[in-house]
């Protein structure tokens, strides 16, 4: 929330108290977002968290039931042409006429914008130069998704929306897509992406907001989200020789297979207690690892906690 004080010109997106209800079901329950110009912002969350609803409200595809939304100085709900000239949208579905060629499709969409990006530049950004004269229907799945991004780039947008850009990709295709998004960022384009892949947000985003149950439950840079969590994870396997000694209080639980996992905010003190204990017995602690809680641990914790709250309501 450190960005909400920024003056409007520095922000590409400013959202306050956004709500969207489908009948009695509230998919988005009052979220605030601020996205700076030129940054890659990821809205991260599990399926059904409200990601697509949020991004479609920002794109102008959906109305909202409450809150204020300002994107590039426009309210998307007004369907202004001037707004659509400045954004690029990549939906989950392709939605391109299957009987046109790649080059024709890009040209057709370029023609809708006042200052389109040159066709060859668009094709080069997504690596489809060789498919220029291929019919859209003959492209592979991965190529169609790349064309999908190409169409979003055709108008040389200031702001690009990518809704789950790599869902269903194989690992190599994901790396390519990530490279493409980094290229976009380097051209100064603001990127707003939704994803349920944590590593995607970690790799690409300058800032991440985690959404669950229609609420933003954490926001910040991937590093700050991880470091906000000061806990360290210590893991080892309980050697048989130690079982005869009284277990130190730090070991709360031993799994059936002998694994021990301790989360602690005082790793040094805990480790000292453990090593003294093992040293007194003269045994090694097999498979001993000490690691910082990863963004994934934090993400799962946050999402679980929010679901528990949601279930209690």
């Amino acid at each position, binding site marked *: 929330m450190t960005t909400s004080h920024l003056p409007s010109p520095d922000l590409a997106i400013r959202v306050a108290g956004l709500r969207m209800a489908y009948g009695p079901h509230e998919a988005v329950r009052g979220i605030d977002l601020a996205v700076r110009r030129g940054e890659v912002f990821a809205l991260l969350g599990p399926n059904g968290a409200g990601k697509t609803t949020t991004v479609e409200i920002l*794109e*102008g*595809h959906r109305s909202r039931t409450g809150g204020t939304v300002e994107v590039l100085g426009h309210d998307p709900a007004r369907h202004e*042409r001037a707004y*659509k*000239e400045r*954004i690029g*949208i990549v*939906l989950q*579905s*392709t*939605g*391109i*006429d*299957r*009987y*046109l060629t790649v080059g*024709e499709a890009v040209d*057709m*969409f370029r*023609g*809708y*914008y*006042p200052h389109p990006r040159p066709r060859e530049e668009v094709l080069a950004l997504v690596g489809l130069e060789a498919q220029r004269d291929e*019919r859209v229907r003959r492209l592979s799945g991965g190529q169609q998704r790349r064309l999908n991004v190409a*169409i979003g780039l055709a*108008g040389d947008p200031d702001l690009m929306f990518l809704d789950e850009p790599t869902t269903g990709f194989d690992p190599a295709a994901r790396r390519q897509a990530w490279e493409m998004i980094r290229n976009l960022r380097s051209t100064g384009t603001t990127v707003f992406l939704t994803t349920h892949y944590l590593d995607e947000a970690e790799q690409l985003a300058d800032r991440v907001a985690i959404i669950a149950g229609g609420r933003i439950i954490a926001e910040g840079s991937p590093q700050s989200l991880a470091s906000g969590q000061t806990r360290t994870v210590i893991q080892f396997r309980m050697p048989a020789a130690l079982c005869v000694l009284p277990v130190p209080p730090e070991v709360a639980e031993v799994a059936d297979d002998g694994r021990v996992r301790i989360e602690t905010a005082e790793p040094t003190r805990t480790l000292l207690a453990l090593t003294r204990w093992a040293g007194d017995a003269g045994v090694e602690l097999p498979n001993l690892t000490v690691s910082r809680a990863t963004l994934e641990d934090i993400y799962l914790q946050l999402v679980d906690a929010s679901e528990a709250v949601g279930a209690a309501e």
Partner: protein
Amino acid sequence: MVLRQIRYEWVAFWRNPAAAFFTFVFPLLFLVIFNMVFGNAEISVPGGTARASTFYVPAIAAMSIVNACFTSLAMSVTISRDAGVLKRVRGTPLPPWAYLTARIGLVTLVALLLITIVVSLGALAYGVSVPTHTMPAFILTVLVSAATCSALGLAVTALVPNTDAAPPVVNGIALPLLFISDIFVRAERVPPWVNRLADVFPLSHISEALQTAFNPFEVGSGFEWTHLAVIAAWGVVGMLLALRFFTWEPRQ
């Protein structure tokens, strides 16, 4: 803007051989079959008698308009809607009205081409004389009818839950009307109540207005203002329904 879009739609239309083929083949097939079977029968028309071919050419012209502007438009727009094409366009600066106008423009061009073939075939193969002094009335009727069928075609997409359901829903509306509306079967050969039912809908008015233009005994300019008024009224109804119920989002 609209013309540019029509050009892309035109290119894509001809690259989908199945859709293009059926849009053209059905009316031409019916023209040939009906003329083969009934073409030389004498029928009574206002002012005298004529060969049945004189009836089938304008009747199949009416069918051509329905086929291109209603059936083909409704089906292709449903496919576009469910494939996300409409949603995609909606996210661009191209105004929605410009896009839909281009889709209507495409099917109107297809209908005009089809009618040109039907009339030429009628003249060359079946000796049907092409209207001269009633030509303006014929063209006006074709254009008004194309607009009405297109508006109804867009409106009917709201009734179609998904792409698979498009052919049964759209044909389920168009085919019965083609049978009762003085196109496949002459109006005088069906019970009067069927004619009265058919007169509620625009198609019999389209067929009859086009027939007037082809009637060799027609001495006036052939404008059937009453028929045109009914056709146009249905166009307005179709447009209002489309404005109210047309959706750009894919449906599951």
